[in-house]
């Protein structure tokens, strides 16, 4: 794929979308980017790495934390290849003093001036993957790259929209949301849809075409049986 040149932000390119989305970013001398821990696949020797820990120790214990490595180009222009953890799609948005919320595993990389924070959702709104009750809040000015397990499709919302909680990758701040059951009580238990997120307002939601949990449940019966001796 041809490199994407932007007037603002870094030059970058995506390869192998949507199944094995992979990111290459060009970093001019003296500039810095933030990358999710362990996502660096290769880089040139001009880059220097420093580990940052977002959230503090208390949040680390609650699982509400994020390790971010900062890569700075020191002795000239540099290039880095970034591979997200899950095989799937990758997407980009340039934040222009906006805020975007990401599902807790979706963060891949961002420009240095993007503020990356974790946001506790509370038990009533904490929905992503059912266990991790926090979102990643990205705000400010700069590039933001995020990924998913499965393809990423943007949906522009003007009014109301319903999205299965497990299929949300990201959404813009201008949308408000509530977590609801779908249909009647029978549907809550038997529809297989579980809880859904009702979005309201004018903004954008990025959805993923697959969820990782059904894959995990599917593979379970193939595991060997425990030997009780």
């Amino acid at each position, binding site marked *: 794929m041809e490199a994407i040149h932007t007037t603002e932000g870094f030059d970058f390119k995506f390869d192998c979308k*949507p*199944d094995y989305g992979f990111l290459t970013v060009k970093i001019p001398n003296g500039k810095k980017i933030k990358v999710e821990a362990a996502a660096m696949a290769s880089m040139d020797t001009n880059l220097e790495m420093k580990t940052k820990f977002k959230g503090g120790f208390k949040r680390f214990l609650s699982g509400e934390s994020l390790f971010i490595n900062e890569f700075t180009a020191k002795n000239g222009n540099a290039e880095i290849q970034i591979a997200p953890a899950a095989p*799937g*799609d990758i997407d980009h948005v340039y934040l222009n003093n906006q805020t975007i919320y990401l599902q807790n595993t979706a963060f891949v990389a961002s420009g240095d001036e993007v503020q990356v924070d974790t946001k506790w959702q509370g038990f009533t709104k904490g929905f992503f993957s059912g266990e991790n009750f926090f979102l990643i809040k990205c705000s400010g000015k700069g590039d933001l790259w995020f990924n998913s397990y*499965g*393809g990423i*499709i943007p*949906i522009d919302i003007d*009014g*109301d*929209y*319903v*999205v*299965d909680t497990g*299929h949300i990758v990201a959404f813009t701040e201008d949308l408000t949301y509530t977590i609801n059951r*779908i*249909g*009647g009580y*029978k*549907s809550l238990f*038997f*529809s*297989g*849809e579980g809880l859904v997120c*009702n979005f309201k307002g004018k903004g954008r*939601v990025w*959805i993923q*075409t*697959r*969820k990782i949990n*059904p*894959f995990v449940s*599917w*593979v*379970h*019966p*193939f*595991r*060997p*049986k*425990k*030997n009780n001796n």
Partner: protein
Amino acid sequence: MENTIQSATTNQLDVKFQMRPGATAAEITLKPGQKLTAEGGAMIAKSMAIQMTTSTQQKKSGGIIKGLKRLVSGENFFLNHYVAPAEGGKLWLGATHIGDMEQKELHGENLIIQGGSFVACTENVSIDASWQGFKNLVSKESLFWVKASGHGTVIFNSFGAIYKLEVDGEHIVDTGHIVAFEETLAFTLTKAGKSWVSSVLGGEGLVCKFKGKGIVWVQSHNSSSFGSTLGPQLKPR
């Protein structure tokens, strides 16, 4: 006459498959009042005003018995029925597996679908999970089958990519790779090699020999083979 043609065309389902073949999702634009029945758990997103109800059987086809048969056969016992509001709406459906999706228009003929591959169908298609065409199937695949009949659109998914095989004469397909086939085809289960020993040792086990004229949809990968590759590397359960 003109009226019937119009109603026939307006009932057709507007489906676009996105992200094929690895991470396929179906983007469905429902016309005002249009109805769709989908496998439980398949919904990714929808317009707010589309109503959803859950039932134990497909609306207007059979009763609790058919639903029970569906439960016994392992297919989702519960189906979700969507109805579009007066302004129409959008519905996104996905699948569990890494793979592709296909659609088929039924004009009164029957389509046999591998149980786990059924995704959705329009109002005038009925789904019967009690189809017993392969009841003597002794195979590690442990597949079950669903018969779709009537008039309308059926959507099904696969593990891996789907390719269409137009059979005219005879053709052999591994049972684990069949996604769907037209019931106009006659079929027999047979061993892949000359002897049972070579069939079993060769890993092919039972294959299906199709005869006649019709289409078979075949998947590029077999999910139980993938599972058997992953399984031994995981911790015991």
